[in-house]
């Protein structure tokens, strides 16, 4: 059974169709790269998967639970980093992570250890006592990632996790996400295409709410590359989303 299963998912805002009959599934332990130009419907799809927005039509299932019918079961299994990291600027990093761990019902005894584990993974150990509003953009983004990892949820939905990071930090986060494969099922949206080639086996490209490509990266290269041997994902992306 796939970990994430999306069938005929549609989201309409009045007249405008943001997501149009999306179908895809992600197997357990897989990392799916989720691509598309700005405004293609990536964030909307992710918001529906996490139960923040209801779909207009179609269904989405996480670990066999429908996101609309059994939202609590789904939310218990998802770590979510929204487009804008959901941070309280007045809180310290330690206070914030403790609060999120409590929200996710991490048991009281393991709470400190869990916060320490996650802050170690994301390289936050040195800034734990600092107030979030004084952190650099890169650190804020990392706090956002740390928050998603708390409680070690089986599914991670990361909306542009490397946004605002410098190249070195980006490489770190990439390494971190690669390390999650196998244990976690990950959906990763990003604008930085080489990132996808490095971290994901499979990609889903959407444009104007519709799927334009959904396959393994190698196969995509074969199909759309034509005669050229080493066609990059970037070229495929531009070709597919130009229409």
């Amino acid at each position: 059974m796939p970990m994430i299963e999306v069938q005929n998912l549609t989201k309409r805002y009045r007249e405008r169709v943001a997501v149009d009959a999306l179908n895809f599934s992600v197997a357990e332990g897989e990392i799916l790269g989720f691509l598309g130009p700005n405004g293609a419907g990536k964030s909307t799809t992710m918001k529906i998967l996490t139960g923040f927005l209801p779909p207009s039509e179609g269904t989405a299932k996480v670990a066999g639970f429908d996101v609309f019918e059994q939202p609590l079961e789904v939310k218990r299994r998802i770590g979510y980093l929204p487009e804008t990291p959901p941070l309280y600027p007045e809180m310290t990093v330690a206070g914030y992570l403790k609060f999120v761990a409590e929200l996710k019902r991490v048991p009281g005894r393991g709470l400190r250890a869990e916060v320490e584990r996650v802050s170690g993974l994301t390289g936050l150990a040195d800034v734990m006592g600092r107030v979030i509003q004084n952190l650099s953009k890169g650190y804020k983004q990392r706090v956002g990632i740390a928050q998603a990892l708390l409680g070690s949820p089986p599914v991670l939905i990361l909306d542009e996790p490397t946004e605002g990071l410098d190249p070195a930090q980006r490489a770190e986060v990439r390494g971190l996400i690669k390390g999650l494969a196998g244990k976690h099922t990950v959906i990763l949206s990003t604008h930085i295409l080489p990132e996808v080639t490095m971290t994901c086996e499979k990609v889903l490209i959407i444009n104007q709410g519709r799927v334009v490509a959904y396959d393994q990266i190698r196969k995509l290269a074969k199909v759309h590359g034509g005669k050229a041997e080493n066609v990059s994902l970037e070229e495929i992306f531009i070709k597919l989303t130009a229409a």
Partner: protein
Amino acid sequence: MRTALAIARKELSIYFTTPWAYAVFTAMLAVSSFFFVNSLFDFQRAQEMARTYGWDRIPQEFRNLTDGVMVPFWSTVVMITLFVVPFLSMRLFAEEKRNKTFELLMTAPVRPVEIVLGKYLGGLGIITTTLGLTIFFPVLLTVFGKADSGSALEWSTVLLGYGGLLLWGATCMAVGMFISSLTESQMVAALVTFAVLLPWMLLQGLAQATEEPVRSFISYLSFGAQLQGLMRGVLDLKAIVFFCSVIFFSLLLSHRTVEAQRWA
């Protein structure tokens, strides 16, 4: 319920790390001390008049400090509360929506009822602190005042009066929280809360212009009329039930609004 408590703790820690709460505390103490001194002065003048003209010509309430100073003082604190609560309640939901942290709450395994209760508990904490600061004034009276019958104040009445005051604060907070859940803008939340609370308070005046069955119905709904007994330190069960129902319905509506996010 552990998550509700976690949310309440978070609310309180944010209130106390921003200057907002301290500005509100200062405003409450500054304005209420002004009115306290005023009613103390009135009381003193009444005493002097009583000595000159005899007690028969002086209103009953000036016979003791509780009725002569604390009761008028509470009625001004009630008004200050009405002005102050919108500034405390406005951020409860509006700020989360503007900051996009509402997404965190709504995608965490937390039920809407826990979010609403947690936020309301946090709000109660801050309004209780604000009102609790004014207990300084009756303590001052007890320490420096003297009466023939021992303590200068009837503390049982004072405590009942403070109970009523807290119930009033809790009511304003519940209404303010519901309004905050409707908007992303804290400014709008504060203004609308004020625009709802003040006319509701003064509904009694409107009642004067109407005919009988309507008149008693409208003045029954008025905050001002319901507060009269409570603010004299009387255990007015009817008013307690009234305010508790307003709180309950406001929480219910807030819950509906948070729940509606799932259907938007």
